[in-house]
C-alpha cells in the first residue's frame, strides 16, 4: 500500500469513525445515568434524518432551518420516549426496562415503515456539502471534513457541560448514586430528561450527517449503525464519554483498515470489526476507558 492510498483510507476511516463516535456518545450517556442500554437510539437517529428530509423536500424550508427543527423535534421525541417507555419502569428490574427499550425500537421502526414508506428516499444534499477537495492526491468529500469537526466541537461542549456546569455536576451525582442524589435535592427526573435530550440531539445530528454522507434514507437505516455504535461505546468503556469517542474512531479505523490491508476479504468487513472488538473486550472487559470513574456522566 503506497502512502497516498494509506492516507486516503485513513481519511475515509476518520470520517466514518467520528460519525460512529457521535452516535456512541448517546448510548454511553444514557447508560452512565440509568444503566440502561437505549436500544431505540438507532431509531431516534433515523427519525432525525427523516425529519430533516421532510423539512427540506416537503415543507421547502431553507436548509439550516430544516436541520435545526429536525434536531429540536428529535430531541422532544427522545425525551418523550423516555417519559412513555422508560420512566414508568424505572423501579422495575433492569431486564424489564431493557425489554421495553427493545419494544420501543421495534415500534418506532415499524411505525416509520407505515408513515415514511419502506422505499428508500434520496436525501437532498445541499451544495454546501456536496463539494470535493483534493489535498495531495487524497480526495476528501466536503462532508467528510465537516463530520470530524462537528464531532470534536460537540465533544468539547459536552465535556464542558458535564464538568463545568451545575447540571453536569448533578448528572455526575445521579450517575454515581441515584438515591443519594435525590436526597441531596437533585431533581432526578429533570436530569434524566436532560440526558435524553442531549443524547437525542446528538443522535439527530448524527442522523443528518449520516444522511449527508450516505444520502439514502430508509426506516431500518438506524439498526446497523445503532448496533455498531453501541459496540463502540462498550469497547470504549460504556459510561465514559471520551471512551465512546475513542471506541467510535477505533471501530471506523478497524473496519476500513482491515479492508485496506486485506482487500480479498472485503465481504467480511463487519465480521472483522466485530472479531477485533471481541478481542479488545476479552483483554479488557470494562472497555478501554471503562475504569475511569471521573469521566462518567
Amino acid at each position, binding site marked *: 500500500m503506497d502512502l497516498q492510498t494509506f492516507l486516503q483510507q485513513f481519511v475515509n476511516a476518520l470520517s466514518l469513525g467520528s460519525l460512529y463516535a457521535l452516535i456512541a456518545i448517546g448510548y454511553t450517556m444514557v447508560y452512565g445515568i440509568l444503566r440502561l442500554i437505549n436500544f431505540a437510539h438507532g431509531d431516534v437517529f433515523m427519525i432525525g434524518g427523516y425529519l430533516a428530509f421532510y423539512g427540506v423536500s416537503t415543507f421547502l424550508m431553507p436548509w439550516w432551518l430544516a436541520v435545526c427543527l429536525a434536531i429540536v423535534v428529535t430531541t422532544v421525541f427522545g425525551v418523550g420516549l423516555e417519559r412513555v417507555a422508560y420512566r414508568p419502569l424505572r423501579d422495575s428490574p433492569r431486564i424489564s426496562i431493557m425489554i421495553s427499550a427493545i419494544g420501543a425500537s421495534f*415500534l418506532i421502526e415499524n*411505525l416509520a415503515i407505515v408513515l415514511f414508506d419502506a422505499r428508500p428516499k434520496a436525501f437532498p444534499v445541499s451544495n454546501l456539502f456536496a463539494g470535493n477537495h483534493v489535498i495531495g492526491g487524497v*480526495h476528501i468529500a466536503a462532508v467528510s471534513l465537516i463530520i470530524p469537526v462537528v464531532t470534536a466541537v460537540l465533544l468539547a461542549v459536552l465535556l464542558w457541560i458535564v464538568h463545568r456546569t451545575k447540571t453536569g455536576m448533578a448528572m455526575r451525582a445521579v450517575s454515581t448514586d441515584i438515591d443519594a442524589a435525590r436526597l441531596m435535592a437533585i431533581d432526578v427526573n429533570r436530569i434524566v430528561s436532560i440526558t435524553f435530550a442531549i443524547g437525542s440531539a446528538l443522535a439527530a445530528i448524527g442522523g443528518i450527517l*449520516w444522511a449527508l454522507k*450516505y444520502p439514502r434514507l430508509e426506516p431500518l437505516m438506524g439498526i446497523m449503525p445503532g448496533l455498531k455504535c453501541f459496540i463502540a461505546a462498550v469497547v470504549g468503556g460504556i459510561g465514559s464519554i471520551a471512551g465512546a469517542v475513542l471506541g467510535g474512531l477505533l471501530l471506523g479505523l478497524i473496519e476500513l483498515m482491515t479492508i485496506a490491508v486485506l*482487500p480479498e476479504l472485503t*465481504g467480511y468487513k463487519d465480521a472483522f470489526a466485530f472479531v477485533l472488538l471481541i478481542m479488545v473486550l476479552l483483554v479488557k472487559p470494562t472497555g478501554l476507558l471503562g475504569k475511569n470513574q471521573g469521566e462518567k456522566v
Partner: protein
Amino acid sequence: MNKIVSCLTVAAAMAVGLSMVSCSKPATDSDVIKIGVFEPLTGANGAGGADEYDGIKLANKLFPEILGKKVQLVAVDNKSDKVEAANAATVLAQKEKVNAVIGSWGSSLSMSGGPIFAEAKIPAVAVSATNPAVTKGNEYYFRVCFLDPFQGVVGATYAFNTLKAKKVAIIREVSNDYSVGLAKFFADEFVKLTGDQGAIVATSDYNTGDQDFSAQLTNIKKFEPDAIFAPGNYTESALIIKQARALGINAQFIGGDTWDMAAFLEVGGPAVEGAVFSTFFANDVPINKTSESFLKSFRDEYKKEPSAVSALGYDAYLVILDAIKRANSAEPQKIRDALTQTKDFEGSAGAITINAERNADKAAVFKTVKDGKFAFLTTVKPQ
C-alpha cells in the same frame, strides 16, 4: 401509563399488519382463485418488490376474473431477508393455500421460497429473478425474464465492443446470489473476449445494506480500471458510484437489471449520469400492443413511469391467468402443467415462451442515465 403504552403498541402493530399484508380475508368459498404475491415490501429490496407489486396489482385490476371466478391477490412481505422469505413462503403455501405464486424480486429470496412451493406443489412464477438456480431442479418454479448467464455475456460484450474496455474491476454484493452469479458470468466472458487472464483487475465485495464503500473503492482505484462492473442492489450501487466519483474514480460504471429503478436515479443524482446497464424492458420503445396498453394504463393508474420489473410483474400475472384458462382449472398442479406449455404469449415486455428449463428466452435491453432519466441504448437478442 403502561396501559397506554401497550394500547399504542397493539394499535401500531395492527396498523403495520394491515398496511403490509392484504391477506387477512379468509377465502370462504372456492369461487376465489388466490394468487400469492411473494415480494420484499420492506428492507433493502423494498422498492424492487413494491414496483413488481405495482405491475401485479394493475394486472389484477384490469383482469380480475378468470373461468368466472374472482382472482384475489394475497401479498406477504418477505422483508428482503432469506429467513423471513422462507417463513413468508410457508404462510402462502400452508396457511393461505394459494393456487399460484408470483415473485420474488431477488434471486436469493426466490431460492429461499422455492423448496417450500415445490413441496406444496404450488407453481411459482419469478418476475425478475435472473439467477439460473431459481428454476434449476425445481419443477414448480418458472420465470418470465432472461437469465444471468445471458445477461453476463451481453454485459461483457457491451463493455468490450462498445465501451472498448480492456481492464475491468468488479464490485459484488456478496450476500446476494444474483450479484455473485452475474459477476462470474461477466468475468468469464470478458476474460474470453480480451484473451487476457488479468483483464479483471480487481474484485471487491460488500454486504446488502452497507453504506460505506470508500475502502473497497480506494483499493480499486489503484488498478485504474477502464470500467467497473457493479451488479447489485440499486441503492447500494448508486452510493457506490457516488462515492467513487467523490474519490476521483472516473471509470465507466456498468450494471445489471437491478439498477432499473427510480430509486437508483434519486439516490445517485448527478453521479450516476452516464452509467449503463442491461435490463428487461424500455418504456420509451413499446414492443407490441400489450406494452402499449400496459404503459398507458400504468401511467393512468400510478401517474409515474413504470420500471421494467413492473412490466414483468404484469406479465407474470397474465401468464398465470393464461395457464389457468388453458388448463380450465385453478388446481395448482394443472396450472403448473399448463405453464410448461406457454408459447409465444404476448407479454408487455416481449413474447414469452417457457422452455424445458422453465425459463423464458428474451432479449436484453441496454439503458443509460441521461439528464437524470433512463434512456434506451440498444436491444441485444439471444443467439
